[in-house]
């Protein structure tokens, strides 16, 4: 087994982008084939890694329990009085990152498939897409905080251009809103990173370090340093560690997103082209959830326990608020964007419970939402491609006109609203069970939060089924009349080939969740032990 599999997975898209740059711009179709081959290769590679991934590899705070590790010194700089600067190229996977890496590879392939008809400067488009691909893979693998931050910021750049150039009518507005929102979070994150750097030393060399795993061990903190648990430093009369946690949480929570930091999401989705919506919902939102577990909870476990109640509340509010606002939307894509807010609320609630059931449920919900939201945005894109309209009230009786498309939509809707047999059900049920358990296991969340969260399951049925009834049932009526009914052809073979695997995956994970839980369990147990155990 090649020891650098993970590095190959991360930087393969960069190679593809380099190849694309050498292909002359008039050979339009070459780019998408290069992208597709890269995506498929990544999918196979990450699938193989997933298969090889040892379920006992808990990771979290111990380097030896990570797998596919690449750990190379990167920047070593003597800074005189400030000591030596130590930045490593340090990547590895555990149960938190492995499923998300596979998910990212899968969603990328879907996004590439959805980009098949991009005409506008295809070269730039696919080069940016590949750059984004690399950044995403890097974020999920980086174990050095500096490296993580580099990848994290690198994601923003291609996304800004992909929305701002290839997007809809108000694309500039949406792109800049998205960019500034995220930047707002990450700028403060940088301060915390620097603070952590000066608080933590490598026990072997004594030099300050960006190594996340060292940051998780209280023994590595310099006594009296800003983030040392023993020093009890304060800033603006808030304990420093709590402040650090809150700043990092807000940075990631914007990505998740939580209410009330969510308003970039509907605009970005509505204006973004279909493939970018798929990536946004399928991968980008998970970076937020992943960051909270990997960084906020693991580096500041004490603050996580202190804040659990508020996190639970944020989760519950996001679930219900997102669902209610989704209920009133007239634009199908906006409706699905708000449903994402609601479904990601379950992720926050499950994490906040700090029980194994809740945290594993949250991880499962992220995976499940990853490809279900990708499927939903793809389905919206299919409709938009045909008639350039997404108004819920502009269509009726589509089931008669597009029977196969309707089957896909109905299955995706029912899977998303948590019908047993599909993956979202397992995620939501275990989040609810974990939240109920929290009161007796660690006393962090009250039981009413679980009850309130389950109301979101009811509301999701309401907005999905109402949409089905309005758009698909009844006698056909189209706003665009005869021209539309000609344009509204049923799902093409390419579209079917993309949809079927996603629905099958939702079904397989729903029927046999062990496929994911087996890989997640050890890490979740280790994480919960790390956070609640001390």
């Amino acid at each position, binding site marked *: 087994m090649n020891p650098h599999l993970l590095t190959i997975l991360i930087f393969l898209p960069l190679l593809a982008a380099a190849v694309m740059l050498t292909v002359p711009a008039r050979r339009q179709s070459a780019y998408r084939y290069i992208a597709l081959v890269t995506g498929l290769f990544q999918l196979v590679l990450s699938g193989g890694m997933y298969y090889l991934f040892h379920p006992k590899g808990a990771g979290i705070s111990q380097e030896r329990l990570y797998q596919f590790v690449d750990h190379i010194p990167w920047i070593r700089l003597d800074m005189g009085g400030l000591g030596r600067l130590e930045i490593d190229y340090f990547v590895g996977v555990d149960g938190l990152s492995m499923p998300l890496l596979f998910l990212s590879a899968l969603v990328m392939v879907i996004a590439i498939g959805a980009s098949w008809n991009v005409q506008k400067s295809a070269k730039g488009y696919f080069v940016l897409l590949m750059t984004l691909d690399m950044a995403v893979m890097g974020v999920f693998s980086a174990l050095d905080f500096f490296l993580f931050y580099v990848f994290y910021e690198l994601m923003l750049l291609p996304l800004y251009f992909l929305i701002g150039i290839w997007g809809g009518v108000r694309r500039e507005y949406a792109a800049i*809103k998205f960019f*500034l*929102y995220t930047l707002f979070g990450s700028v403060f994150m940088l301060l915390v990173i620097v603070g952590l750097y000066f608080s933590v030393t490598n026990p072997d060399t004594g030099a300050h370090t960006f190594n996340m795993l060292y940051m998780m061990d209280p023994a590595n903190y310099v006594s009296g340093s800003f983030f040392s648990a023993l020093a009890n430093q304060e800033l603006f009369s808030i304990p420093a560690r709590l402040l650090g946690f809150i700043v990092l949480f807000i940075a990631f929570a914007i990505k998740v997103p939580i*209410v*009330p930091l*969510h*308003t970039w999401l509907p605009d970005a989705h509505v204006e973004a082209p279909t493939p970018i919506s798929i990536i946004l919902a399928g991968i980008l939102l998970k970076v937020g959830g992943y960051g909270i577990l990997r960084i906020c909870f693991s580096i500041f476990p004490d603050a996580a326990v202190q804040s659990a109640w508020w996190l639970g509340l944020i989760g519950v509010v996001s679930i219900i*608020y997102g669902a*209610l*606002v989704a*209920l*009133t*939307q007239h634009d199908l894509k906006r409706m699905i964007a708000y449903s994402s807010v609601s479904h990601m609320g379950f992720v926050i609630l499950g994490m906040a419970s700090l*029980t*194994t*059931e809740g945290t*594993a449920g949250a991880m499962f919900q992220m995976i499940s939402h990853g490809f279900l939201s990708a499927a939903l945005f793809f389905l919206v894109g299919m409709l938009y491609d045909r008639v350039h309209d997404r108004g819920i009230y502009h269509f009726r*009786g589509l*089931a*008669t006109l597009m029977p196969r498309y309707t089957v896909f939509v109905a299955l995706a809707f*029912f899977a998303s609203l948590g*019908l*047993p*047999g599909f993956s979202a*059900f397992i995620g939501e*049920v*275990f989040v*609810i*069970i974990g939240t*109920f*358990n929290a*009161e*007796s*296991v660690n006393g962090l969340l009250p*039981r009413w939060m*679980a*009850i309130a969260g*389950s*109301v979101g*399951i*009811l509301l999701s*049925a*309401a907005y999905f*089924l*109402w949409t*089905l*009834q309005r758009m*698909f*049932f*009844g*006698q056909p009526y189209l706003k665009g009349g005869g021209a539309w009914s000609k344009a509204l052809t049923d799902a093409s073979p390419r579209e079917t080939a993309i949809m079927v695997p996603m629905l099958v995956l939702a079904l397989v994970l729903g029927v*046999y*969740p*062990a496929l994911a*839980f*087996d890989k997640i*369990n050890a890490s*979740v*147990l280790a994480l*919960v032990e790390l956070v609640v155990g001390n």
Partner: protein
Amino acid sequence: MTPDTPTYPILAAFATVLFPFIGFLLSALAGKKAKSGFLAIITIALSVITAGYTFAMVWGEAPIHAQWHWFTIGNEAFHLGIFLDNIAVLMLLVVATVALPVHIYSVAYMKGDPGIHRYWTYLSLFCAAMLGLVIADNLLLTYICWEIVGFASYLLIGFWFTKDAAAQANKRAFIINRIGDIGFLIGFALLYSGFGTLDINALFGMEGLFVVPAATDAPASAAQGGLPAGWITVAGLAFFLGAMAKSAQFPLHVWLPAAMEGPTSVSSLIHAATMVAAGVFLLARIFPLFDGTVLLIIAATGTITALVAAYFALTQFDIKKILAFSTVSQLGFMVAAIGIGMYPIALFHLVTHAFFKCLLFLCAGAIIHEMQHLSDRHQLGIDPQDIRQMGRLRRYMPVTFATMLIASLALVGFPLTSGYLSKDALLIHAFEWAAWQQGVAHIIPYVLTFVSILTSFYIFRLLAKVFFGPTVTAPLANGQAGIHDPSFWMLGPMLFLAACSFFPLFTLQPLHYAHAWLLEGIGVSTPWAPIPLLHVAVPAVTTAATLAIAALAWHWYVKGKYALKTDGLLYRFSLHQGYLDSFYDRVVVGAVLGLANILRWLDKHLVDGIVHGLAAIGRGLASIAGWIDRQVVDGLVRLVGKLAWGLGSMLRHTQAGRLQGYLSSLFLIILVILLYHFIVQA
């Protein structure tokens, strides 16, 4: 507890679920080619055989349990398993036995429908999930099947999805059932957080955590393991909420009458015999969970449901709506039986009801089928389900009449029918229970008796109007209708179910329930003393009342001497089903949408307003900085420049190159210095 290894009954029970599931998969894969229903019928027939075998092997024997590891979350393992006790195998057999005739009936009933392939697919899915529900060994698995039967029901209610009413009805059914599902979910999540297991046998079995203490005042809730008593009550109420939605209890019953938009064969199987009874089955399964408070609430809800639904049934004109409300009312009886602690009797009534109510719907389907033909042939454009358009059908459809009469007599609990046995048992126990209780509980048996009289009225009204009464439809009146009993494919199932509606299926003593094998198998033990007088009084009174009501219905509807006004408040209230639908639409849906619209407004104007406000502040600060940059910072720079320039241009005149100028300047400067000297010295 270590589970037993799979034995033949377990395999047979598994096969019973697997067959229809295979039928579902194959029909789904075959798509439009699966028109004949052959697959669905064969698979359900195989299920009947294996269910019969399972029943024969397990009934009266010790329960069998088998489970397989499914997945592990953290350190907690979850299993897929089969638990076969008397209740499970009884339900397994009943569901399969009712499903088979409905499948056969559907061949003729659904013939020619363009979406028939979907019909068979959905029906097989329903059967698999319903059969799975009754043999599941843990609450998570039960919940999964519970939701899937709801999903199948959604698909079948909306089978004719181009009809707006059907599209509305299936959405309503699913959402109301979701309310119940959330109750179920909260219930089992609470149990799991308290006891760490969802295994039905471990929780509620003979040696379970909730063992029923014999002869104590409170019939339930001995286990106080991991949950405080208050949360046990909450869990009980949460499960009951689930049962209320699924078994259409007031005030969540509104989805069931609306669900009549589906094909009638579906109504008979799903919305009369099996799925709607799943709520009652669940309550029986987890019975030891309920404490006194919850049981009283259950009894009261069941009684209110029985009363209100029977009252609504009195004035309906749609033949399926009458039967739907009748179903709701009978489910109320079953739930009330649970509430008084007599879950075996609830199951007994569930089983007898499954046969005769299924039959009532199949008869109604035959009538609707023929009325539709009549309407088409004579281009009448009448509503084939409206009983005001019917009348004198006995002449045209004698066999249908006979079977419907049998089913109706079973419904009202007339002697010699199966319904007599179960309803008699229910009422007698209700009276005995009430005598043992205090307070308002006393009125419950009287209300139930009254409801059974109302039952007689609405069903005899239906029979009289449909089969005997005068008709406004000309071809029916003049004997030229040309309609007849349905073909054998429909008649056969009806005759079979009619045979199942008589007493011998349950006991050989036609007038006494005590030795019914079903009750003996599940075991009725009462904490109260029996009152022998009731065993005579209750059947005598109800039978006499039934006969009197039959005579009244004959007088009013056949002889045409209807004596009541149809514009009274009570009449209108019943006809409009208590205006509950409009109440829900306006108040509940209105409130949710109103709140949602407020949030949407806040989202747009407050949350995004703050974002835009921050952006505006940023831009404002930037333009102030820009102004300062241009005017102050650059101004200073320019001022310095201007000063230099001004000074320079002033001084450049002195550098004109004229000697006279230089000399006179020199002279002037010396003069000034001298003057300065003189002034300072002085």
